[in-house]
């Protein structure tokens, strides 16, 4: 650093933003980078847990008349596999990357609501533990991840299984809603000067689309969970025909959430794809504007297709027409995205490294899944294969392909930024191919099995259907896939010490997270960057201007824990926002809510009332310390 002024500014920033290591900081930090890392690690642990469930099921199904687990345990396994993967792995993992990268990519110093950020992590952890504690009492949810009535009603499932499901999801919803609010306000109000709407990075568009979807979709699920819990606990009626209810009401409410949920998963993941493709194609993303539009359009249209999950329930054809039309049209924006990526790769000079390998894997896998998906939009075909393994094959291709491949790409792409080290490319390449081959060996045979008639959610099958060989191949594939994942885990752990030093920008990338050190300092940027294009890190002069500004103490914001607020359209400076540093209240509030939900689950109403009071007290305590005090 050349000037005295610059050095003094840096010292001031270090002092203002420093967090000592230790238990107290661990429990009270509101730093988006630490919280993002926690999300990543915790989600991956849940991934492994869900994976163990999957391997158990595959072992059971490898041969006819399998005897590893009985039907009761099998039901819990596939239900918790689905719940874990969707609610406790893919979405939080993507939010982990969002948490870490969104403030960096928009040139901010933290999220809009740092304490809420910490809260959303603690509640995610608490609700995950809550859900898994069901195994300890032998009452894990066992009615599938979508928990249809009438089976989910008390008359048919009297145990606590479904109460864990309802309350666990209601609990998690608090975390997701808070997180979505945080992302939206951050992305629209905290961007760097000059970052107008059309210069927002595509990963941030993905997170924004996800967050809008969460805000509007989660309440439908919550309504369903609340209705079902009132029915199970207090004898209300919503879903039982005999008392004026309707079992399909659950399906409608669930899928009004459930379909947008796949876009909640998919859109940040393709945001990751859109981040990695230009970097490894060595050129700006072709049709950046169209991809931003496609992201938001997919999320929007995604709210109007949910009945396509109910094509076999005997509704009116006119009703089906609405959703069939939308299900076909939603392919258009997805197609635009795929052509955008392909065009960018073809017109660039692609450099094949492990992040790009996983992106290519995603393209192949997702397109296959997309093709079978469009087949479902044709109602006659859908009614033939509904509830068979064909469906299982389809959604694993789109979910695994559309989310897990991008997640692994992100791990390989952003690992240098988080740790300052590079992953081992050889091990990464071997792991990728094992992963890719394993994945296809596991799930491709399921298309065949579905067409041969094997139903979903069966804990075993008799020999003589011709299903045995395909199931065996699938199981071998599953263990191969696990090996590929293990390779990546080994790579991640080893490279922390053994990896090559990365430096600020090992990939020569175009977004702002690479304009600062690896890992970034607590305050992210010494001076808030000013942006003049959609690829700010490739604008070398602008990045030199950032350093010049530091040396003149401009936009360094050393008055406190500060970041810049701009208007949502043009990126003109509006004000300086002061944020909180460490705080114990997010953790305390999460604990109070845990008390409430546990008490409610156990049916101790007095204790639940105390939990509610503690929650109110924690909210009050949160407000005790105001900025500037």
């Amino acid at each position, binding site marked *: 650093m050349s000037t005295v002024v610059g050095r003094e500014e840096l010292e001031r920033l270090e002092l203002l933003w420093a967090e000592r290591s230790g238990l107290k900081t661990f429990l009270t930090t509101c730093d988006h980078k630490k919280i993002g890392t926690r999300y990543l690690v915790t989600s991956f642990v849940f991934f492994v847990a869900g994976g163990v469930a999957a391997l158990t099921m595959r072992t059971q199904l490898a041969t006819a008349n399998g005897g590893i687990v009985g039907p009761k345990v099998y039901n819990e396994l596939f239900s918790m596999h689905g719940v874990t993967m969707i609610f406790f792995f893919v979405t939080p993992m993507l939010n982990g990357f969002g948490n870490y990268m969104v403030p960096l990519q928009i040139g901010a110093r933290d999220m809009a609501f740092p304490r809420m950020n910490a809260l959303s992590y603690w509640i995610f952890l608490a609700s995950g533990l809550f859900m898994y504690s069901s195994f300890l009492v032998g009452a894990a949810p066992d009615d599938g991840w979508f928990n249809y009535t009438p089976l989910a009603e008390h008359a048919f499932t009297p145990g606590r299984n479904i109460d864990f499901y309802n309350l666990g999801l209601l609990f998690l919803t608090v975390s997701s809603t808070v997180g979505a609010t945080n992302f939206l306000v951050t992305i629209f109000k905290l961007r760097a000067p000059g970052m107008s709407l059309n210069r927002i990075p595509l990963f941030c568009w993905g997170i924004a689309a996800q967050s809008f979807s969460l805000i509007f979709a989660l*309440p439908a699920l919550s309504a369903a969970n609340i209705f079902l819990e009132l029915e199970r606990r207090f004898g*209300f*009626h919503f879903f039982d025909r005999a008392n*004026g209810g*309707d079992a399909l009401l659950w399906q409608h409410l669930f899928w009004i959430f459930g379909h947008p949920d796949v876009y909640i998963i998919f859109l940040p993941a393709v945001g990751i794809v859109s981040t990695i493709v230009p970097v490894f194609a060595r050129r700006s993303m072709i049709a950046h504007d169209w991809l931003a539009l496609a992201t938001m359009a997919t999320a929007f249209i995604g709210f109007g297709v949910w009945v396509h999950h109910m094509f076999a329930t005997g509704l009116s054809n006119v009703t089906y027409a609405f959703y069939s039309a939308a299900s076909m049209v939603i392919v258009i924006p997805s197609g635009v995205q795929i052509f955008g990526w392909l065009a960018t790769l073809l017109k660039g000079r692609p450099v094949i490294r492990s992040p790009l390998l996983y992106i290519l894997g995603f393209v192949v896998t997702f397109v296959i899944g997309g093709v079978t998906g469009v087949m479902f939009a044709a109602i006659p075909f859908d009614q033939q294969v509904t509830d068979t393994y064909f469906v299982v094959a389809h959604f694993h291709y789109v979910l695994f392909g559309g989310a897990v491949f991008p997640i692994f790409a992100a791990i390989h792409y952003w690992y240098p930024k988080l740790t300052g080290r590079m992953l081992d490319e050889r091990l990464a390449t071997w792991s990728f191919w094992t992963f890719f081959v394993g994945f296809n060996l596991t799930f491709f045979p399921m298309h065949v099995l579905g067409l041969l008639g094997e139903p979903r959610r069966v804990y075993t099958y008799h020999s003589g259907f011709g299903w045995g060989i395909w199931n065996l191949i699938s199981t071998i594939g599953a263990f191969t896939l696990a090996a590929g994942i293990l390779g990546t885990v080994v790579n991640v752990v080893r490279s922390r010490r053994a990896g090559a030093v990365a430096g600020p920008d090992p990939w020569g990338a175009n977004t702002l997270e690479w304009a600062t050190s690896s890992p970034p300092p607590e305050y992210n940027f010494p001076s808030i960057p000013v942006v003049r294009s959609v690829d700010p890190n490739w604008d070398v002069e602008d990045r030199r201007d950032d350093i010049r500004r530091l040396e003149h103490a401009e*936009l360094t914001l050393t008055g406190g824990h500060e970041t810049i*607020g701009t208007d949502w359209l043009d990126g003109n400076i509006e004000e300086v926002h002061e944020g909180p540093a460490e705080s114990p209240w997010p953790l305390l509030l999460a604990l109070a809510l845990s008390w409430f939900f546990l008490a409610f689950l156990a049916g101790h109403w007095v204790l639940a009332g105390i939990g509610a009071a503690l929650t109110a007290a924690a909210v009050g305590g949160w407000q005790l310390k105001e900025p500037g005090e």
Partner: protein
Amino acid sequence: MSEQLSVPVALQRGRPLGWWGMLMLVATEAVLFGSMIASYFYLRFRTPQWPPVGVPEPKVLYPVLLTVVLVLSSLPAAVASRSARRGRPGQAAWGLVATLALASVYAAGTSVLVVRAWHHAGAQRDAYDSLFFTLQGAHVAHVAVGVLINLFLVGKLSRGRLTRYRANGIWAMSLYWHFVNVLAVGVLLTTISPAL
């Protein structure tokens, strides 16, 4: 470019971040109630006898009166918000008090009606009753939370200054009250619809 980069002394402010956060909360709660109201009509279209046999038609007069009282609270809420932003703590506090007073009248009155209806026949009789009590209960709960928060804000103002942070909080709460009041009309129209 340069004139936009220096942070001006007198900052031109947009709405506070907390207000945008409240807007997101309002949006999500609106969809929650929308889902419950949609469920009401979904089941109604399927049930030839609605309310079911033996269930009386909903009362209209008292719920309408109480809703009017609640909706009126948007006025003092707006006054509180504007006064707070203009740096007038006394006016702001009175606006908060008037809002929570009107809201409390609504909450108390509606609770009395709901408890009476419960004693007559609880929510366990039929989906019609279940939806009625769930909708009313959820709405009163939202009003109650609003009253608690207003009390908290009044307490803060009486013990300390009207800081910008607190003014932003009052601004955000006025949005909450407008939402709760619009919702009240929606819930009212839904629950009295069989009598219309």
